[in-house]
């Protein structure tokens, strides 16, 4: 429900390759504009930090302009500016932080430097309303794989576990390369997997029964490569669809298993999934099945809000404004390894 007395927050996100600018009024989404440099990275098989940083500088002003136009607002309507202060690529983050400081200083409005991961949680409010307190959040992307306990997204986020090596999305990218699929691998593996069987190959599930809420995907990625190489060495055909489906099944099996273990362990009845990998169709299906079986309510924002975007930053900014949190000073750094326990800086 949009109320005209709620603050208009401009959110800026530049932690990786997407220049994201979002505008919210309270928790009503007004604009979510994204310029991606992904096409420039694809031929390198991964995001090149300097390429991303250069693209952010080029794209920022036009993206802000685009978001304002989409929202039907002028810059002077903005009541607060929120920006991803970390974690992420240092040089990329710094472009967004510099822009946010300048907009805040120029407009004379408060600045909020926020945590990227907490913003991935906060964004769900734009689609599904206020967050249950507490919630468990599973954040899975090319840069992160984390399980969080979220008593209050504006003030209190606790890390329960994270990957000890590759992020889930990174494993998708690497396996896609082994299978000759393009970068970024996630959508291509998802598509290829629809024609294959998730049980065709029994790939290993790292840290499946270790009792922690951590993840490991490096061994899985290597196992897939070994399996493919062995078939090729033997002159046997490799079913891309079966390998993709079996790999994907291993990833989403571990992710959903640990997410529901977290719900059980902390007696929390609400699970939220965010991050780019949350767009994976099999993850959504399996998570729903397992949540239904465990009596846990599942919240997954639509794909456009799962991948990196500015609206998620604006959404968390709106929480901070509402909670009366002190704004950030104009000398905040961009912190590439900002811990999740620091929701705002």
């Amino acid at each position, binding site marked *: 429900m949009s109320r005209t007395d709620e603050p208009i927050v401009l959110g800026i996100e530049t932690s990786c390759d997407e220049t994201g600018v979002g505008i919210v009024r309270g928790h009503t989404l007004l604009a979510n504009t994204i310029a991606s440099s992904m096409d420039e990275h694809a*031929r*390198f*098989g991964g995001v*090149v930090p*300097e*390429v991303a*940083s*250069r693209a*952010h*500088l080029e794209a*920022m*002003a*036009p993206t*802000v302009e685009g978001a304002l136009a989409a929202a039907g607002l002028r*810059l002077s309507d903005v009541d607060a500016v929120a920006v991803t202060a970390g974690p992420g690529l*240092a*040089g990329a983050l*710094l*472009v967004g*932080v*510099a*822009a946010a*400081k*300048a*907009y805040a*200083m*120029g*407009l004379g409005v408060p600045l909020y430097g926020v945590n990227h991961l907490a913003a991935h949680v906060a964004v769900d409010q734009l689609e599904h309303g206020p967050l249950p307190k507490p919630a468990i959040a599973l954040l899975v992307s090319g840069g992160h794989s984390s399980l969080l306990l979220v008593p209050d997204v504006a003030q209190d986020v606790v890390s329960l576990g994270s990957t000890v090596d590759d992020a889930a999305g990174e494993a998708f990218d*690497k396996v896609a*390369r*082994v299978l000759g699929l393009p970068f970024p691998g996630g959508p291509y593996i998802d598509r290829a997997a629809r024609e294959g069987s998730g049980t065709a190959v029994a790939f290993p599930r790292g840290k499946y029964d270790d009792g922690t809420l951590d993840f490991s995907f490096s061994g899985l990625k*290597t196992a897939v*490569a*070994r399996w493919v*190489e*062995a078939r090729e*060495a033997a002159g046997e055909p490799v079913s891309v669809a079966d390998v993709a489906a079996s790999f994907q099944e291993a990833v989403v099996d571990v992710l959903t298993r640990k997410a529901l273990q977290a719900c059980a362990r902390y007696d929390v009845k609400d699970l939220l999934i965010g991050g780019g990998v949350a767009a994976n169709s099999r993850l959504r299906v399996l998570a729903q099945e397992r949540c239904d079986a465990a009596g846990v309510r599942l919240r997954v924002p639509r794909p456009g809000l799962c991948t990196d975007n500015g609206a998620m930053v604006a959404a968390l900014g709106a929480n901070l404004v509402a909670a009366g949190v002190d704004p950030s000073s*104009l*000398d*905040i*750094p*961009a912190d590439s390894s900002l811990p999740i326990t620091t929701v705002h800086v």
Partner: protein
Amino acid sequence: MGWGGAGEGLRLTFVLVLAFDTATPAVTAALHDGDYVVAESTTVDARRHGELLAPAIEQVLRDSGVRLRDVTAIVAGTGPGPYTGLRVGLMTATALATTIGAPAFGVCTLDAIAYATGQTGQTGEIDGPFLVATDARRKEVFWARYGDAVTRLDGPRVDRPDDLPPDLPVVGAGARMYAETIGADRVAGPEHPSAGALAALAAGRLAGLTVEEAAELAEMPDGRIDSVEKARELGVLGPPRPIYLRRPDAQIPGAPKRVTA
């Protein structure tokens, strides 16, 4: 913004320039009123451009008693310089200019260093041609050759210090870092750019521009080549875009590495 004259060829008569540069280890900001540098703040810290710039801007505004919205032009050094710091200044200039509806311009950082050598009474005054060299990291320097304080003859380029043209005095941190290579007797002038010099240089040029020229320069153009050529025609002022001189480090990968022997 103040304009004088009438009709065609209307020229800027009143300038209040906020200038800053983050293309070297110095984070420097200044305010210039068309005649003088009213306030300046410079801190040398190669790793904290992102943290230091906005407070430095606030500081010079406070010291000069000027409100941001009264500034008529924003000018940022366009480098060349280490990219992460460089982008802080240019991003700030672009965003800040949008909020106050003023134009943002870029000036080559080496030009600002060169300009400081021609300021009478300044230490490091140089008579005759010279080079400006700054640290480009990777054992290289960004450099340019000047006929005098306001005339760039060659560059900016990026090269190894021992490939610099011989004999001429060398101004800037690049000279000091590689004094042994180029010869200690060639080291001259200021080490870092000052936003005061940048602002003075820009204010002088702005005062000579027509309204149309100022508007054209300040735009973030789609056609980069056009605007660069236009900037050359009109002298040192250009759009607030970075001078990188190197491509990003990135290699197109070959086939995936085998995991089995």
